[in-house]
């Protein structure tokens, strides 16, 4: 029986030769990821169901990366982080990356692969919908709720419904003005926000080699915005090199059968993509950036798991080098590693940090989720009024960045930076 990559990973995790879409299997989970917003509730359920003295299924299989509400005075947010400190100590967890220590990393979905916790062929679940990011390295990875997470914490197993696969075939050469964000916003625009519900979104084809690992993370990150259970790329040499540089732990990659039956297949030529945005208030409201030049903006934002990585800031720096922003421009590195790159990497002898400062951006903030999801009222970059925002983040629902009356346009870092210069939505090609 021919099987897709997702089916093969889940079959192996279930101890089976094959699995079929629609069936429920108990799958072995390699990594459970949680953070400050859903960790305390997950721990609450774990203790309620398995007992106060229960131990997690595998000390090395539980990774806790607080990131959401860190740089805030909110007392409950601090209480939640304290709950994680207590639990990590009690369970003697080696992979806890707490704030206010030199182990702090930042946004969990960028930190998890940076730290070598994402390995091809493995199964990852996390209490965050953007856990689908990690399919970029050939893992099955999906977001779950606290109850399922509490169950995984105690058993290392999860009841998984095998998803049907939608295959996205990428061909052609990617122009330098096209980012991973342009690819996924177009795909979501075509599929619709519920178009891949319950499905695996598998990216294949010769065009995949054109995409950097971070492009693939950006793309898989937003698979959930089309409703997908997971996004996935097979691990190629580029992915294997990325993983091997970050972990000594052995892993066994899998590849799908190219002719495995799928629910649907769509092909895209990367050379035909254009810089684009998703208009308010849904990520599927695709429009070419050039068609939105009449949209006047108040704020630009570069950050988050899908738009705050090293290459995202490199793209922003390329566009902003030697130019001035016309609107408030917020820069939030996802992780400590990204923040370090901003401070030290250079274009034309100038650090990216200096390029941003000379362009008039607001000084770069500490790493974390910040205003991507609004958050407590004192969150950096949070909207409070009618600000029109262009952002590299992944959701533009009403109120997503704080204020219900602040419309959000989603775009690549190139398009966000070009738009920051003009104060209107702008196609970045003229700045490259």
């Amino acid at each position, binding site marked *: 029986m021919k099987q897709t990559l997702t089916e093969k990973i889940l079959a192996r995790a279930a101890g089976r030769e094959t699995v079929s879409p*629609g*069936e*429920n299997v*108990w799958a072995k989970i390699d990594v459970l990821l949680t953070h400050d*917003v*859903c960790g*305390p*509730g997950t721990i*609450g*359920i774990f203790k*309620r*169901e*398995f*007992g106060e003295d229960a131990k997690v299924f595998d000390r090395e299989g539980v990774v806790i990366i607080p990131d*959401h*509400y860190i740089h805030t005075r*909110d007392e*409950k*947010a601090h209480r*939640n982080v304290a*709950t994680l400190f207590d639990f990590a100590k009690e369970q003697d967890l080696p992979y806890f990356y707490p704030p206010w220590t030199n182990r702090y990393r930042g946004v969990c979905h960028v930190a998890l692969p940076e730290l070598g916790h994402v390995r091809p062929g493995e199964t990852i679940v*996390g*209490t*965050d*919908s953007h*856990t689908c990011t990690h399919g970029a390295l050939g893992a099955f990875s999906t*977001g*779950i*709720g*606290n*109850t*399922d997470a509490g*169950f995984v914490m*105690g*058993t290392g*197993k999860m*009841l998984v*419904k095998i998803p049907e696969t939608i295959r996205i075939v990428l061909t052609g050469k990617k122009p330098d003005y096209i980012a991973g964000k342009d690819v996924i916003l177009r795909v979501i625009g075509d599929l619709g*926000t*519920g178009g891949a*519900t*319950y499905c695996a979104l598998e990216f294949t084809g010769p065009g995949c080699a054109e995409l950097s690992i971070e492009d693939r993370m950006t793309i898989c990150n937003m698979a*959930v915005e089309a*409703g997908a*259970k997971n996004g996935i790329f097979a691990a190629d040499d580029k992915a294997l090199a990325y993983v091997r540089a970050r972990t000594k732990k052995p892993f066994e990659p899998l590849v799908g059968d190219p002719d495995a039956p799928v629910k649907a297949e769509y092909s895209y030529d990367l050379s035909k993509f254009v810089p684009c945005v998703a208009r308010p208030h*849904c990520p599927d409201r695709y429009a070419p950036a050039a068609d939105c030049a009449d949209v006047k903006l108040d704020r630009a934002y570069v950050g988050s798991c899908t738009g705050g990585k090293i290459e995202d800031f490199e793209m922003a720096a390329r566009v902003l080098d030697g130019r001035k922003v016309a609107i408030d421009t917020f820069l939030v590195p996802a992780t400590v590693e990204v923040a370090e790159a901003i401070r030290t990497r250079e274009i034309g002898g100038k650090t990216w940090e200096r390029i941003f400062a000379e362009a008039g951006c607001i000084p770069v903030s500490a790493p974390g989720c910040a205003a991507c*999801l*609004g*958050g*407590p*009222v004192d969150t950096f970059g949070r909207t409070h009024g009618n600000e029109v925002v262009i952002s590299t983040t992944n*959701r533009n*629902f*009403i*109120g*997503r960045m*704080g204020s*219900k009356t602040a419309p959000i346009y989603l775009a690549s870092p190139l398009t966000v930076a070009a738009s920051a210069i003009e104060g209107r939505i702008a196609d970045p090609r003229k700045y490259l």
Partner: protein
Amino acid sequence: MSKIRSKVYVAGDNIDTDNIIPAQYLNLVPTIPDEKLGSYAMAGLPDDAAPFVDKATGKTPYGILVAGKNFGCGSSREHAPVALGAAGCKAVVAEYYARIFFRNSVATGEVYPFETATPLVSEFKTGDEAELDTDAHTLTRLSDGKVFPLKDLGAVAPVVEAGGMFAYARKEGMIPSAAH
């Protein structure tokens, strides 16, 4: 429970988890009932939407929420079904759900996530009285007795019947039934 008789609240398509429970309330922990997550249910709807929760009581008069396509899209926050359940909502009846919201509703047992066989948003208005029969899979509009069929719960029915993920796993022998 087999019959739920209540007023219905009607919402549209793509009701996302920021509508159901805005991110500023994610500092509240769903397993701590004193944090009154329910009082913020549906607080993220636009300000011109009818209030879902009665401010005085912190509860909802609407036991049944009728919605369109892709209900619960967005975040994996389990705060969403917990907030609805804590507010006193018993069931959501939507054309279809975002996967994680559906799964969380089933796993927690907080709300029944029924799918409609036909779009029902235009058949009800907020405040209408209705009766949901969870065994017969029907929603009845009480003003004229019109009965609308719902889909059965499919592959998750055994989990729902068991009373949630932990009860199901114990029944299946996945975890010891001796645990409290």
